[in-house]
């Protein structure tokens, strides 16, 4: 087990370092195959670890550092949560690596790309497997760095580089919360081990736990793009599409949710924290869905949808349903990776066009992309019997089971968001791929560009992901059909929540299906048949009212500019022009001028030759020393 665990971590790290050091000297084929091989090797190692798994295990690999009472060994923790996430990460990332071979086929920066992707996988696995918070924090910052470097991968365009910076800075605000929480926990409990921290909650008062929980929530908000720190994720789409799929949809953004799940035994006792997590999640889910409805950039729609789906996971964590959150996390990784990779195919075929209104009826031109994409969309919407249906339903059922006014309201928001999700997903489907009821095959020449042929590997990758999205539900079937695999596997992690009768659950699922179907209907009503041409024409005019509000992402960016950036600029202008130039520089300049004048005045008595000064200095010193010697001796 230990070897397997070490291999899981070591392989991607070695792959990354190998590519950094030697990648430039080797052929493209070698770089690509190393990068993919190490991730798949890591997947195999995870499988072996899963096979050898018998119960939660703490494995100490080596000492990292220790001073006084702070001891931080490199310890890994394998429990159902980290094991299932490990399998998911290595599998999805492996597929994305393969896909990247096709996507980056013509890019000269492939060495940097694959090295960073490998390092990312390593950092993410460290984050997931870490047993102490400091190791987790290292992985946390590692994924943050890789994400920054990959968002700004095409750094020659200022827009991309600043998107990378924005992501880095916004997540850093959240990291401050996490950092404070870690240091504080060490001060309180004298240990950083997650397993021990989770058993020590009763030692401190509820108020402290609440504060710790809120700090951790702040960290999770930054990393997982939750309100109010969600502004970086839509801009993060500036990176290459595989990066968006791997980092900003499947794995990294779920790190915040993972952190909260990991620390849930500690912070879950506080009802305030739970409520805060749930409210954040529900609000963000709603926010993301509303923004996605009017967005016209294909990748940004998916980014908003990611924000929204992670909101669901947070909602689940806040309701104490860790299984539901994990289940949705894994399903989301499958279908969102699928959607992003499909979008990458579409975008490549359209010569890097991302505006959905420039695409039309691609269903007939790209059938190999359309069918997997449809599977992903159905899964995102939550139509039975796809995996997304079961996972989203478990979350909503858990929220409903929690009862009370607050969670009742959150359930309503969640259910309304299901409807919105269906609307925006199928708006995208109808606009990009065409209306199924109006089967006028689009001729190649009616599109304004010639479609570019896709590498075969890019289409093949979509198939396993599509299959997993469609049948992923079997991992955790609802209780009325039998016992869920994940449910029993993750059982020790769950907080005791209310359980629902099978009828109630069926009713809730029925409501969800009705909401989703009506959402699809609304999308079709707006964007189907001949009305699509009207919409298309209208989309090119400037937006007004609610549409403009939503398209600008509720003007959150503008609000932050007004609240933080603008005052900061004013303050820096004052400090620069008044304080630095006015006070410091001016006083120094005056002083220098004063010295100069004094020097001119004193210089009248000398000859102005440095060598003479030197000689007289030496002579004077000799005289002084001689006099001292005379006196002393």
């Amino acid at each position, binding site marked *: 087990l230990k070897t397997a665990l070490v291999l899981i971590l070591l392989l991607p790290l070695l792959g990354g370092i190998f590519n950094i050091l030697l990648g430039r000297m080797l052929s493209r084929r070698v770089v690509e195959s190393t990068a993919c091989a190490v991730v798949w090797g890591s997947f195999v190692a995870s499988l072996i670890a899963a096979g050898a798994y018998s119960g939660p295990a703490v494995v100490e690999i080596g000492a990292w550092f220790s001073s006084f009472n702070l001891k931080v060994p490199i310890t890994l923790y394998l429990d159902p949560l980290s094991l299932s996430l490990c399998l998911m990460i290595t599998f999805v990332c492996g597929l994305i690596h393969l896909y990247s071979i096709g996507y980056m086929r013509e890019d000269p920066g492939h060495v940097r790309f694959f090295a960073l992707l490998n390092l990312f996988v390593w950092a993410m696995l460290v984050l997931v497997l870490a047993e102490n918070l400091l190791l987790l924090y290292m992985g946390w910052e590692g994924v943050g760095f890789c994400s920054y470097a990959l968002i700004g991968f095409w750094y020659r365009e200022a827009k991309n580089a600043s998107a990378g910076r924005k992501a880095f800075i916004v997540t850093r605000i959240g990291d401050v919360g996490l950092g404070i929480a870690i240091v504080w926990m060490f001060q309180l409990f004298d240990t950083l081990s997650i397993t021990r921290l989770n058993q020590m909650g009763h030692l401190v008062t509820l108020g402290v736990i609440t504060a710790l929980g809120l700090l951790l929530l702040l960290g999770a908000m930054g990393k997982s793009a939750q309100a109010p720190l969600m502004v970086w994720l839509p801009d993060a789409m500036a990176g290459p599409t595989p990066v968006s799929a791997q980092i900003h949809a499947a794995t990294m953004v779920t790190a915040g949710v993972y952190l909260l799940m990991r620390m849930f035994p500690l912070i879950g006792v506080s009802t305030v924290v739970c409520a805060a997590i749930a409210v954040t999640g529900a609000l963000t889910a709603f926010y993301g869905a509303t923004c996605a409805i009017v967005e016209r950039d294909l990748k940004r729609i998916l980014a908003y949808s990611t924000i929204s789906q992670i909101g669901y996971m947070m909602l689940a964590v806040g309701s104490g349903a860790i299984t539901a959150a994990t289940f949705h996390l894994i399903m989301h990784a499958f279908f969102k990776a699928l959607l992003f990779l499909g979008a990458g195919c579409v975008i490549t075929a359209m010569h890097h066009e991302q505006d959905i209104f420039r695409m039309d009826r691609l269903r007939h031109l790209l059938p190999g992309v359309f069918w997997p994409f449809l599977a992903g969309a159905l899964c995102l919407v939550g139509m039975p019997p796809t995996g997304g249906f079961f996972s989203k339903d478990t979350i909503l059922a858990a929220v409903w089971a929690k009862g009370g006014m607050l969670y009742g309201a959150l359930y309503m928001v969640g259910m309304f968001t299901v409807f919105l999700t269906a609307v925006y997903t199928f708006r995208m489907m109808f606009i990009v791929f065409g209306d199924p009821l109006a089967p006028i095959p689009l001729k190649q020449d009616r599109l304004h560009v010639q479609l570019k042929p896709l590498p075969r590997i890019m289409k093949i990758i979509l198939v396993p992901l599509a299959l997993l999205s469609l049948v992923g539900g079997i991992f955790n079937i609802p209780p009325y059909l039998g016992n869920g695999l994940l449910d029993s596997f993750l059982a020790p992690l769950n907080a005791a929540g209310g359980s629902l009768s099978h009828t109630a659950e069926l009713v809730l699922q029925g409501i969800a299906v009705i909401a989703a179907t009506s959402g699809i209907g609304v999308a079709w009503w707006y964007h189907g048949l001949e009305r699509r041409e009207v919409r298309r024409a209208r989309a090119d005019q400037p937006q007004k009212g609610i549409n403009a509000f939503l398209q600008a992402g509720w003007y959150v960016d503008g609000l932050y500019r007004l609240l933080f950036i603008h005052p900061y600029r004013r303050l820096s202008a004052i400090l620069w022009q008044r304080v630095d130039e006015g006070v410091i520089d001016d006083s120094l300049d005056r002083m220098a001028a004063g010295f100069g004048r004094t*020097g*001119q005045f004193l*210089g*009248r008595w*000398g*000859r*102005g*030759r*440095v*060598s003479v000064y*030197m*000689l007289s200095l*030496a002579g004077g010193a000799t005289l002084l020393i001689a006099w001292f010697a005379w006196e002393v001796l």
Partner: protein
Amino acid sequence: MIVPLTHVLIFASILFSLGLVCVLIWRANVIMLLIGIEIMLNGAMLVFVGGSNHWGMADGQIFALIIMAMTSAEVSLALAMVVYLHRRKKTVNVDEFRELKD
């Protein structure tokens, strides 16, 4: 300690006088003047270290470290000034710079 204090002092004074002579004689080049100053400083530093060893106190060594830090700052400034002076007169001869008088 095998080297007695007197030896250290003698060696340090030799270093110091070498540096002093360098400073006084070598007028054609500002950089040599700076090097001379460095050598003198090293002689002084050696006295500090030798003394600290002789009396078993760390103060002298700490002072030597401070001198090192100060010297590096001084050299970086002085070299920048040499570059600047060279740009102005296309020479590094010490005696060419006599604006203080003329």
